[in-house]
C-alpha cells in the first residue's frame, strides 16, 4: 500500500545549465528538501515554497512551480479538503497549521474606501506641514478639567491630565508573538525596532528574555492562562501588562508548545523544564466572569503600581458586549484580534472557521463603548491581518486607536507565508529554535527592516490624513463618515455604520 496519497504541492526546478553545484540550496533549506549527489536532488514533497533556496541560489538556477498534477475539479470537494482527509485517515490527528486564516472569506477592508478633500476644503501636504501621529494608549479622563491660571487664562487642573498612558509615536505596535513560537532574534529585532520607532512590542505568553530588559519601556508583557514566566519582576518590567484571553487564529482554545521547542533558553523565560510541554489551558481558570477579570486586572495593577492593563480577546459573535464588560472591569485597552489573525500553531478547523472579521468587531465595539459613554476609558487595539497602511487607516476610521501587526512584521523579516510555523523548521529562522536556523536573522538587520516598514506606513498614513484634510490621527479616529462601502451589502453597512459610496 502507498504510505500516503498526498502528493507534492510544488515542483522544485533546477536549471542544470546554471547550477554551479555549490550546495547552497542544500544548506539553506530548513525542510530537508535537498540531498546532494554530484548535483542537488530535490524531494518535492517536502517543499513549502518558502523561497529560501531561490533567494540564496547564487546562480538564480532554482524556480518553484505549482505542481501541474491535475485533480478532477469539484467546487465542493476542494483539493485541500481531500488532502486533509487523506492525511487524517493516515494519522488520526488534528490538522495543525501556522499563520492566519487563508480561506477566501469576504474582506470588508477591501470593500471600504476613504474620502479626500476636493475644492471645497483644502487637503494638506504632509511633506510640508506638521502631521500628528502620536497616540496615547490607555484610559483617558471623563472630562477636561481646567482652572484659572491667575493671568487671565486657563490651565489643566493638577491631576486632571493623562495618567498611566503609554506614548506611541505612531498608531502601530507589534502584536504578541511568544519567544518559543518565534526565535529570540525575532524578539530582539522587534524590541530594537519598537524602541527606535517609539512604539511597542509584545512578549506574547512566553516570558521576557533578559536580552530584552534594555528595551523594557517598549515592551508589553503578557499574562496568559499558562502564566508562563509571570512573576512580579516580569510584570513590573513591562510598559503595560496584557491579559491574553483569546487569539483571533484560535478563539476559545488553549495552546500547546511541544516539548521539542522548549530548549534551555526557552525554558528559562517560561520557567518550565527543558523538553516539557508548555500547556496553556483554554480559559484562565481564575477568570470565569467579568468580575473575575476585574479581580485579575486590579491584582496586576496592585502588583505594578497601577500600570496600564489591557485585555486581548478574539473577535467573536458577542464581541461588543464582551468588550463593554472588559472596559467596565477596568481594562485600559481592549485588544481585538480578528479571525484572520496569525498564529504559530493552531488547529486548522479552528483557525479557518471560528471568529468574526476584525473590521466588524472594531466598528461594533467602538459604537457600543460610545453608546455607553465609556469609550474614553479604554483604547482599542485592532489586529488580525492588518496588511497595509490602508488597512490601518480604515481600522482607525472604524474606531480603533492603534493597530498591531504580527504577520506583516514577520513578512518584513523574511516570512514567505509558507504556513509551516508549527513545524519548528522555518528556513528563514523566524519560527524555530534550531540554532543553525535562528542565526540567519541578524537582529540589527531585522530591526532596520521593521523600522523601515513602520516609517513607510507612517508616511503613507500621513498622506491619507493629508488627503482627508486633517492633520492629526485623532481626527480620523472613529470618523466613519470618512469611509464609504463599495460592494458592501446594506446590512453590513448598517452594522459598521458606514454609508455606501454615492451617499
Amino acid at each position, binding site marked *: 500500500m502507498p504510505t500516503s496519497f*498526498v502528493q507534492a*504541492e510544488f515542483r522544485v526546478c533546477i536549471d542544470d545549465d546554471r547550477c554551479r553545484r555549490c550546495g547552497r540550496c542544500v544548506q539553506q533549506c530548513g525542510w530537508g528538501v535537498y540531498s546532494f549527489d554530484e548535483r542537488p536532488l530535490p524531494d518535492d514533497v517536502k517543499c513549502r515554497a518558502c523561497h529560501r533556496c531561490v533567494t540564496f541560489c547564487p546562480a538564480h538556477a532554482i524556480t518553484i512551480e505549482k505542481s501541474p498534477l491535475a485533480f478532477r475539479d469539484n467546487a465542493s470537494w476542494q483539493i*485541500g479538503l481531500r*488532502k*486533509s482527509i487523506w*492525511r*487524517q485517515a*493516515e*494519522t*488520526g*490527528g*488534528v*490538522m*495543525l*497549521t501556522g499563520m492566519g486564516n487563508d480561506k477566501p472569506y469576504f474582506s470588508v477592508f477591501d470593500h471600504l474606501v476613504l474620502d479626500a478633500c476636493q475644492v471645497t476644503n483644502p487637503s494638506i501636504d504632509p511633506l510640508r506641514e506638521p502631521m500628528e501621529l502620536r497616540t496615547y494608549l490607555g484610559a483617558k479622563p471623563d472630562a477636561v478639567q481646567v482652572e484659572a491660571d491667575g493671568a487671565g487664562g486657563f490651565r489643566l487642573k493638577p491631576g486632571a491630565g493623562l495618567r498611566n498612558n503609554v506614548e506611541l509615536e505612531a498608531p502601530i505596535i507589534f502584536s504578541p508573538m511568544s519567544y518559543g513560537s518565534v526565535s529570540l532574534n525575532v524578539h530582539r529585532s522587534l524590541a530594537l525596532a519598537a524602541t527606535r520607532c517609539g512604539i511597542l512590542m509584545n512578549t506574547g505568553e512566553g516570558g521576557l528574555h533578559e536580552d530584552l530588559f534594555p528595551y523594557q519601556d517598549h515592551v508589553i508583557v503578557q*499574562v496568559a*492562562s*499558562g*502564566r508562563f514566566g*509571570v*512573576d*512580579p*519582576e516580569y*510584570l*513590573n518590567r513591562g510598559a503595560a501588562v496584557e491579559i491574553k484571553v483569546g487569539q483571533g487564529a484560535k478563539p476559545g482554545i488553549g495552546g*500547546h508548545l*511541544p*516539548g521539542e521547542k522548549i530548549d534551555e533558553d526557552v*525554558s528559562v523565560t517560561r*520557567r*518550565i*523544564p527543558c523538553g*516539557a*510541554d508548555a*500547556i496553556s*489551558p483554554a480559559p484562565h*481558570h*481564575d477568570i470565569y466572569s467579568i468580575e473575575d477579570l476585574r*479581580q*485579575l486586572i*486590579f*491584582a*496586576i495593577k*496592585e*502588583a*505594578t503600581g497601577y500600570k496600564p492593563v489591557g485585555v486581548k480577546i478574539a473577535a467573536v459573535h458577542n464581541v461588543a458586549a464582551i468588550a463593554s464588560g472588559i472596559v467596565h472591569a477596568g481594562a485600559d485597552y481592549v485588544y481585538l484580534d480578528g479571525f484572520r489573525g496569525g498564529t504559530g500553531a493552531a*488547529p486548522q478547523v479552528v483557525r479557518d472557521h471560528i471568529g468574526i472579521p476584525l473590521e466588524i468587531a472594531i466598528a461594533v465595539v467602538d459604537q457600543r463603548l460610545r453608546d455607553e459613554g465609556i469609550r474614553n476609558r479604554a483604547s482599542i487595539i485592532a489586529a488580525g491581518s492588518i496588511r497595509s497602511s490602508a488597512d490601518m487607516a480604515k481600522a482607525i476610521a472604524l474606531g480603533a486607536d492603534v493597530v498591531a501587526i504580527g504577520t506583516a512584521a514577520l513578512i518584513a523579516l523574511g516570512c514567505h507565508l509558507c504556513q509551516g510555523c*508549527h*513545524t519548528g523548521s522555518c528556513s528563514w529562522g523566524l519560527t524555530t529554535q534550531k540554532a543553525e536556523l535562528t542565526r540567519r536573522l541578524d537582529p540589527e538587520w531585522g530591526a532596520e527592516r521593521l523600522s523601515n516598514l513602520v516609517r513607510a506606513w507612517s508616511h503613507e498614513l500621513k498622506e491619507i490624513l493629508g488627503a482627508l484634510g486633517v492633520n492629526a490621527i485623532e481626527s480620523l479616529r472613529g470618523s466613519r463618515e470618512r469611509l464609504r462601502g463599495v460592494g458592501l451589502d446594506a446590512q453590513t453597512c448598517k452594522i459598521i455604520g458606514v454609508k455606501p459610496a454615492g451617499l
Partner: protein
Amino acid sequence: MSAPLFFGGRVVGHTRAAPPVVRSGDRATIDCQSTYYTHVNDAVRQAFAEGVQTVCLDNVNGQRYIGTGLAGADRRIEVHGTPGQALGMFMDGPTIEVFGNAQDGVGNTMNGGTIIVHGSAGDVLGYGMRCGCVYIEGDVGYRVGIHMKAYKDLRPVLVCGGKARDFFGEYMAGGLLVLLGMDSRLPGPVVGGHLATGMHGGELYVRGEIEPWRCGKDVAVFPATAEEMEALGGVLADCCAALAKNLDEVLAAPFVRVRPASLRPYSELYTSL
C-alpha cells in the same frame, strides 16, 4: 477605627483614607476596619518600605490583594479577620499568616513565600503557582492547585487540611499538592470530581481513599509507597508545625498518590500537510 460612611441612610461601606497605623519597633499594626483595599495595601507597602519586618492587619473584612506582588523573604504579614480575594497573588518571598478564613485566589501565580491560613479558603487557590508554600487548615473550594508548575529548584507546595471540591490539581505540571481531608466541616467525600484532569507532571497525594471515577481519564491512583511517604514527611511536618496539627494523627491513615498516565499527553494529537 473609622466607621462605615453613611450618605442619606445608604451605607457606602468603606472609607477611602489611609488607615491608622501604630508602629512598635519593627512591627506595624494597621486597623483595616472598613478601609478600602487600596489604602490598606498602600499602608502595608509603605510600612515595609520604612523597614518594618512584621505588619499586623487587624479587623480585616474582605480587603483584596493583601500581599499581592510583594517581595522580600524576611517580611511577614499577620491577618486578623477575613482577607479578600487574591491574597498573596504574584507574591515573591514574604510570609502571610491568616487567623481566620480566606476567600478565593490565595497564592494565585505565587512565586515564593509562605501563606498559612488558620481556617478554610475558597476557590482557585495556587493557580499557576511556581514556588513557595500554601498551608490551609480547613476546607477548600473548587479549582484548587490548577496548573502548578516546577522549574529547577522552584517547587510549589500546597497542602489543604480539609476537603476539596471539583477540579483539584487540574492541569498540574509540577510541584506538590496534598489533600488531608481532616477536620472538615463539609459533608461528602474528601475530594470532588475531575480530580487532576489533564495532569502532566508534579506530585499529588490524598490522605484516604479515592474512587477512580473522581479522577480525570488521564491519571491513575496508586497507594503511596514507603519511599514516597518518607519524601512527603518533611513537608507534612512543616505543615503540621505551621497549623499546629498532630503529625502522627496525619500519618495514621494511608495516602494515595495520583499519577499522570503521560508526561506528554498531547504529543500524538496533531498532524499536518
